[in-house]
């Protein structure tokens, strides 16, 4: 079900919504779109801070936080991801992995010899409780062996944190150089938009058209035009307006889920258009893909899904990942 996917572990960077035959969002939808939780950017976070006891007890154990290293390239730099389910993933180059000295596996995305390694720990597991041997080993490794530091994006669920609000992460933030950011909302009304009928053209063409609308790419080319032969898939109908909204930033699964519920409510009412679409894009450099498996960049780092919701309660889900990523069940 769609809920399963949106509550999953993809660290989201952008949600785009397309509402055909709509020129302004109804108030509930507008309110959800403009109230995505803010997130934090921490500069040079020493990664051992993610193992801080207070942080674990008040935030991580409650499934209330998640975060990702910022501007680290998955195939070149060391990357860190902390998922809401308490899994900490470190994707390291060979030297860093050997210096760290903690258990890990070679990356599934490798050439003939292993050049990347993945360390994955479940911080909620009893073996990783503060004071236990594995916990102390990882803490020591991160503190004194490999002093891993990275810029880090962190988001926390406003309600799940046990101390309420940001109190659980304040102590962590107070030790660091941090800034708070609100997700950026971009809203465009498109006029005279030819829209293909979603069920009558092949999924690739439809997704391509949807991506073009998002990127502001025009489909008004004749097939003999020198510059571009890109046209809207047939059959298509002309819509007088359409609303294209995108929210960008580190987005909470909880907020995406709320948006999903609101879109379902919207499309189930009688309307001119019989469908809406929501595309959720993850970070291309995330060490973890939306199926909670290891994600590799390869050529493009695709990591997104598009959900099409129809008036008759049916939906279509398109998931796109790199050629060697693992699909979820």
């Amino acid at each position, binding site marked *: 079900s769609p809920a399963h996917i949106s509550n999953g572990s993809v660290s989201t960077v*952008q949600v785009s919504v397309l509402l055909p035959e709509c020129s302004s969002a109804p108030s509930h939808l507008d309110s959800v779109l403009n109230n995505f939780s803010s997130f934090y950017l921490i500069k040079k976070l020493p990664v051992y801070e993610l193992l801080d006891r207070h942080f674990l007890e008040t935030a991580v154990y409650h499934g209330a936080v998640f975060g990702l290293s910022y501007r680290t390239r998955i195939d070149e730099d060391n990357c860190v991801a902390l998922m809401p389910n308490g899994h900490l993933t470190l994707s390291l180059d060979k030297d860093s992995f050997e210096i760290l000295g903690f258990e890990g596996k070679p990356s599934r995305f490798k050439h003939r010899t292993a050049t990347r390694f993945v360390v994955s720990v479940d911080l909620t597991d009893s073996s990783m409780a503060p004071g236990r041997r594995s916990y102390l080993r990882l803490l020591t490794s991160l503190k004194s062996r490999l002093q891993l530091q990275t810029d880090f994006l962190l988001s926390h669920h406003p309600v799940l944190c046990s101390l309420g609000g940001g109190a659980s992460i304040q102590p962590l933030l107070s030790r660091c150089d941090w800034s708070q950011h609100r997700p950026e909302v971009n809203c465009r009304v498109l006029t005279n938009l030819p829209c293909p009928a979603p069920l009558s053209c092949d999924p690739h063409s439809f997704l*391509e058209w949807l991506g*073009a609308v998002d990127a502001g790419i025009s489909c008004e080319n004749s097939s003999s035009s020198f*510059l571009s032969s890109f046209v809207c898939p047939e059959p298509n109908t002309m819509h007088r307006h359409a609303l294209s909204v995108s929210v960008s930033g580190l987005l909470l699964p909880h907020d995406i889920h709320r948006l999903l519920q609101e879109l379902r409510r919207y499309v189930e009412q009688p309307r001119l258009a019989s469908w809406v679409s929501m595309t959720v894009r993850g970070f291309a450099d995330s060490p973890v893909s939306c199926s909670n498996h290891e994600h590799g960049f390869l*050529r493009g780092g*695709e990591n997104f899904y598009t959900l099409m919701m129809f008036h008759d309660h049916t939906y279509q889900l398109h998931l796109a990942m790199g*050629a060697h990523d693992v699909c979820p069940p």
Partner: protein
Amino acid sequence: MKEVEEKEEASVYQRVVLKNASPYHYLKVRLVLEDDSTRLSAVELKYFIITGLKSLYGEVGAALNFDVLKYDEDTLTAFLRVYSSLVKLWSSLTLLGSYQNQACAFRVLQVSRLNPLPKNM
């Protein structure tokens, strides 16, 4: 590129997995010129890329079909779409070294198999 499609009606659903099925590749590129006040129109840019294909792959290579989906003249940034021959196009861009007697370079900013090209944060 793997793609999964699930369609649910009551409790019946269908799942289709398409591996490496998308025929197009998308590139976001930026042309960097020695004199950064130089401007090219979209048509000039496309013609310039075609000359690059021709010099590396000959007449047949120059006939490679690619589209300039979007072009920003101020930043000289373009979204390109090419049918299956990503390697030919990318290698031509890499080896294009001069435009009208000034040094230049194409920076390939993003490559994707399926539009939408994800936004860089």
